[in-house]
């Protein structure tokens, strides 16, 4: 396939991508998925390239997925966590990144608690920056793998109704997914308590619902987000028990969903809080597909950004 018109060095967010760029990443992801599932002979597209995972926040899935993806492309991978870096000695992100660049990194995958941190870094260093989550702003690779998973099951998402349910206010996953889904023609409903899903999200073009039944009943897929325990103390909702009672998706409410509606969750799942165990493990759930699709999607991202489309498959 021709990927020579890919021009981005960095992947900072979905908001800035065009639908054709999104399609380009997902088409390439499909090829990588086939390669992974096929003869398993690893392709050495990024041999000799050094990918640095700079993770300033805890992460299991994303960090490992980027590592596996980079290794699958034969890149050298170095993972740096905040606790093990000089950031604990007071070094700034700017200095850490400049040092990493000076040590010969070919790309930096950044996870950081500050919105805009990846953009900030992209203005300081010359190497490609791949945003692996910046505060509540964006988490593009997650949205792309979610979109991949949905397209895999539904065909196109155009005209489909997708509900994202839970802590939208603090969620980068929700924002990136909103952009990805709406750019590809889906109708997105953001749902949850009014304190976590302000009406102002409507200004982005989303439908906002504070009623679970209303949010679920027409949905072709529902994407749940982890309810973060720490939000209780900041008066966004009274208790996990109350959240579960009003917004938890459980077997008693399963019939509110269409029979073939898909259930997604970026993980980690709080079983019994936002999602019942029975539904987590049900045939409608594509949660583990999301995880495995994440490898192929991240291979595509690393490939495109690191090589900037200079070569083609």
């Amino acid at each position, binding site marked *: 396939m021709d990927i020579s018109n890919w021009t981005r060095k960095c992947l900072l967010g979905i*908001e800035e991508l065009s639908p054709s760029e999104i399609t380009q990443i997902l088409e390439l992801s499909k090829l990588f998925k086939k390669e992974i599932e096929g003869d398993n002979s690893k392709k050495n597209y990024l041999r000799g390239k050094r990918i640095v995972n700079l993770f300033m926040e805890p992460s299991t899935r994303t960090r490992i997925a980027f590592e596996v993806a980079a290794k699958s492309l034969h890149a050298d991978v170095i993972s740096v966590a905040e606790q093990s870096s000089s950031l604990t000695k007071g070094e*700034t*992100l*700017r200095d850490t990144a400049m040092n990493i660049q000076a040590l010969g990194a070919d790309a930096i995958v950044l996870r*950081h608690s*500050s*919105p*805009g*941190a990846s*953009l*900030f870094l992209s203005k300081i260093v010359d190497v490609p920056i791949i945003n692996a989550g*910046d*505060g*509540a*702003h*964006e988490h593009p690779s997650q949205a792309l793998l979610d979109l991949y998973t949905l397209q895999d099951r539904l065909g196109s998402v155009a005209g489909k109704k997708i509900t994202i349910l839970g802590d939208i*206010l603090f969620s*980068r996953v929700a*924002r990136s997914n909103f952009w990805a889904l709406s750019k590809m023609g889906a109708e997105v409903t953001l749902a949850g308590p009014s304190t976590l899903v*302000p009406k*102002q*999200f409507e*200004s*982005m073009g989303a439908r906002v619902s504070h009623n679970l039944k209303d949010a679920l009943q027409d949905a072709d897929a529902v994407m749940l987000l982890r309810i973060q325990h720490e939000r209780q103390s900041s008066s966004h909702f009274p208790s996990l028990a109350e959240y579960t009672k009003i917004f938890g998706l459980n077997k008693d409410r399963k019939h509110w969903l269409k029979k073939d509606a898909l259930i997604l969750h970026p993980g980690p799942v709080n079983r019994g809080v936002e999602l019942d165990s029975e539904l987590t493990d049900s045939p409608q759930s594509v949660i583990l597909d999301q995880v495995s699709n994440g490898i192929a999607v991240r291979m595509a991202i690393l490939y495109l950004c690191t090589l900037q489309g200079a070569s083609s498959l």
Partner: protein
Amino acid sequence: MSITCLKGGRVIDPVNGVNNIQDVYFQKETIITKPRNIDTELITTIDVRGKIIFPGLVDLRFHLKNITGGQTENILSGTQAAAAGGYSSVLLMPDISPKPDNPGTIQFIQDRIIKHACVKVLLCGNLTKDGKGEQLAPLGSLQETGVIAITDCPKTSQNNQIFSKGVEYASMFGLLVLDLPRDMSLSGNGSAHDGPLALKMGLGGYPRIAEELYVQRAISIAQSIDTKIHLTSISSKGSVELIKSAKDKGIKISADVTANHLYFNENCITGFNPNFKMSPPIREEIDRVSLINALLEGTIDCVSTAHNPFQEHEKNVEYDLSPAGVVGFETTLSSCYQTLKEHKKFCWTKLIKAMSSNPSKILEIDTGSLSIGTPADVAVFDPNIEWEYEARNSFSQATNSPFEKHLFQGKIIQTFVNGKIAFDLK
């Protein structure tokens, strides 16, 4: 007997109702009438034809991190920047090190000012000890040492009893209380206006109501004690409406807005540039329009700079980790002129009133006019100079300006403080 004459300029002197071409004379440090029967060789004449002449500007919000400067702005560079912006008097906020919450420290600060300042630096003491909002500072003693106003800006006591008693206690000494209205429980560490853009960008929001509740607090307290409170850096349409209604009732409330809030709307933070991060945050276009109208109609009394210098490495970090505050001395007048000049209600008299006469009146100081016998604090503005602001060419040692590379029409070319030249573009 050296006399200076600024000849042929358009003089704007709102206090005396002057807005026409005339000459301004001063001798030593005082404005005088046109001398008669005097040898013209004894008069130094400066040709200011085509220029605008007005009383030196007065700023109500000037921050300086450390009175000795350290590696960032010091008294000299800060006041040089002020003079370059047309300011002859600036009110120093108390969030400096060491804290001006006791007479000894205030004396120390005054000594530094006398040695290094090139404009008049007026002192604002802390309302509460260490600015923490928990225990009143010794306001009477502070006043005796030369403090002319008090505030905990950029914070404010979150304890209503402390704040209200502080205002009441200050009123006994006739001390003006300045307040930056902010309910911290609602604003938290919010780094952007709590609106659709912050929501989209994933930034913590600083909502309008965090300001408006405390604007109402100040209004209620000013009314119940029957004393003056000045609200600084008003940013929301709702605050404007509250202030207008309070003024209509005769409550002694005054307010200022920063030039940044008149010039920009929230879209300025789209690129996560920390040089647009300030407290309160820049809000929506509807707020900006309301603030402009309020200034031109007189609901908002003054424009302040909120000049707040930071070192490059402190400010240029991740947006939400960056401290709030930007520099403003050298751009405030030019940016206000640019913002307002096309507005149908604009006139120079209103602008000079807001930037000189009104702040002087609020502080009860003898500046803000070109009345005979008052200090010769005078600024000269050339409306025809086109210039580009660049931090590296500025007097301020800090670079945290939202106006980097902005083109302006009109610039201060000379500032006199007590009759002495404090800034000369040449």
